[in-house]
Structures are given as structure tokens and as C-alpha cells.
């Protein structure tokens, strides 16, 4: 007589899947923060009649300590042109958007060399600003 072996079903425990997903998400959010410039501290200047900016190829920021950042990475102004040219490559004009986020208290000696570098690299400069509240 042949005795049938008992079959045990082995299922993967799915109870902790939510926790795993949550931790993975935190991990990727932190990783993404390293690449963007959301950690840069700056207050935008306010202007009326602004337009919605399109998607940028690069983002240059000058923070409240007047340091320059390219895509969230701090770098000296003299390296900005070379790095921007490498990022923009042969992209046709009109699609070479470079966002410029300047702290409103920055001075011409801080932002003019940056604007010059963006212009020299052939970037389509977009000043990122805050819409000015309407006064009645």
C-alpha cells in the first residue's frame, strides 16, 4: 500500500509588503532629493504677469548664502559654462530650457556671471519667480 505524502502549501507572507513598499519609497525619495535642488534655500523675487515655465534641461540656483548650484550640486561659477554645455549638448533651440532660481537678496556680482554662463552655453533662460499678489 502506498501512503500518500501530505502536501504542505507554502505561501509567501504578504503581511509586511506594505511596510517594505513604504521603506522602498522613502529610500527612493531620499535618493531623488540628492539629485534635485529642493534642498537649496532661496526666496524667489515676486513679479506680476508671469508665465508657466516648461520642463527644464538644467536648473541653476543661487541660494541665500549666494552659493551657486547646478542641478542641486554646489559648484564654482567658472565651471558652470562647461557643465551646462555638456548637459545641453546638441539639443535644438527652444528645448534648451535652463531654470535660474536666484535668491531675491542676491546682488549683481552674484547673478550676472551665472546669467552670462547660461547665455554663453546657449541655454534658454527662464527666471523662476513667484507671482506677485494683486493689490486692489
Amino acid at each position, binding site marked *: 500500500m502506498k501512503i500518500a505524502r501530505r502536501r504542505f502549501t507554502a505561501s509567501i507572507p504578504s*503581511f509586511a509588503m*506594505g*511596510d517594505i*513598499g*513604504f521603506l522602498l*519609497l522613502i529610500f527612493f*525619495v531620499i535618493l531623488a532629493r540628492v539629485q534635485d535642488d529642493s534642498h537649496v534655500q532661496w526666496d524667489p*523675487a515676486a*513679479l506680476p*504677469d*508671469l*508665465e*508657466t*515655465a516648461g520642463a527644464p534641461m538644467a536648473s541653476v540656483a543661487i541660494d541665500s548664502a549666494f552659493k551657486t548650484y547646478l542641478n542641486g550640486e554646489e559648484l564654482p561659477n567658472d565651471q558652470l559654462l562647461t557643465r551646462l554645455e555638456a548637459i545641453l549638448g546638441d539639443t535644438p533651440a527652444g528645448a534648451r530650457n535652463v*531654470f535660474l532660481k*536666484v*535668491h*531675491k*537678496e*542676491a*546682488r*549683481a*556680482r*552674484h*547673478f*550676472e*556671471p551665472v*546669467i*552670462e554662463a*547660461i*547665455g*554663453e552655453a*546657449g541655454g*534658454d*533662460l*527662464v*527666471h*523662476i*519667480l*513667484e*507671482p506677485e499678489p494683486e493689490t486692489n
Partner: protein
Amino acid sequence: MKLRRGKLLVDPPAASSSDIAFILIIFFLVCASVQPETGLSQTLPRTEAKEEKKDQSRNLEVSITPTSIVLNGSPLQLPRFRERLAEALARKSREADKVVVVKSAPDTAYDQWIRVSQAIDDAGGILTLELASERTITID
């Protein structure tokens, strides 16, 4: 005799808390990324070679300091500057003559600079920067 009813501890089900947190995070991430950024586009001419500067005497010149805006030697307030600039640019027909050369004092705040820049853009001018390193200082 009164019998005491046994009290049962009722815990809210916590098994799905992490799933709720996950969905909430997705929601806030999507909300944050959807916010559009507003700005001001600016076309910047590339640095001119020295021999191309012969037309520069015809261009309008704007000097910005922390306290004043000077258009071709006349200090103006921003509203008046807008009017005078629009009048001056309306008289120019060639695109090359609409270049407005902007010289900023090193201490000029971005807040003020961008307002002047917007005024030039609105008047149909082509903004060109003259940087401190390019200026010629003549000493007698």
C-alpha cells in the same frame, strides 16, 4: 448576585496602517510634483566679438544701481522708465537697434534687476548685459 461582565480589549486593526501611509505618501508626492513653476523667459544674445560692437552707440543704455534706474543718462522711477523706454523703442524699426545695454552696479539686488529686465522685455527691447569685467575705465 450581580455577575461582572468580562471586558474585552478591542484594538483597531493595524494591519493596513502601513498601506494607508503608503497611499498618503504617494498622494502628497503627486501633489508636490504637480505644482507648476512660474517664471520669466529671457533671450540672451551671446557675447559679441569686438568688431561687431560698432552699432553700440545707437543702442539704449540702462544703468541700474541699488537706488536708481538711469536711461541714457536720465535717472527715472520704474513707472516712468517703462514709459520712456517704450517710447524710445517704438521709434526704432530695425531689430538690431532694439538692443538695450544694461549695466548693473555690483550691489544691485536681483529683486530690482528683474523688474527692470521685465520692463525691457515688455517694451520689446533685447536685453544685453555689460558685465563689470568688460567695462572700460578711462583715467585722465
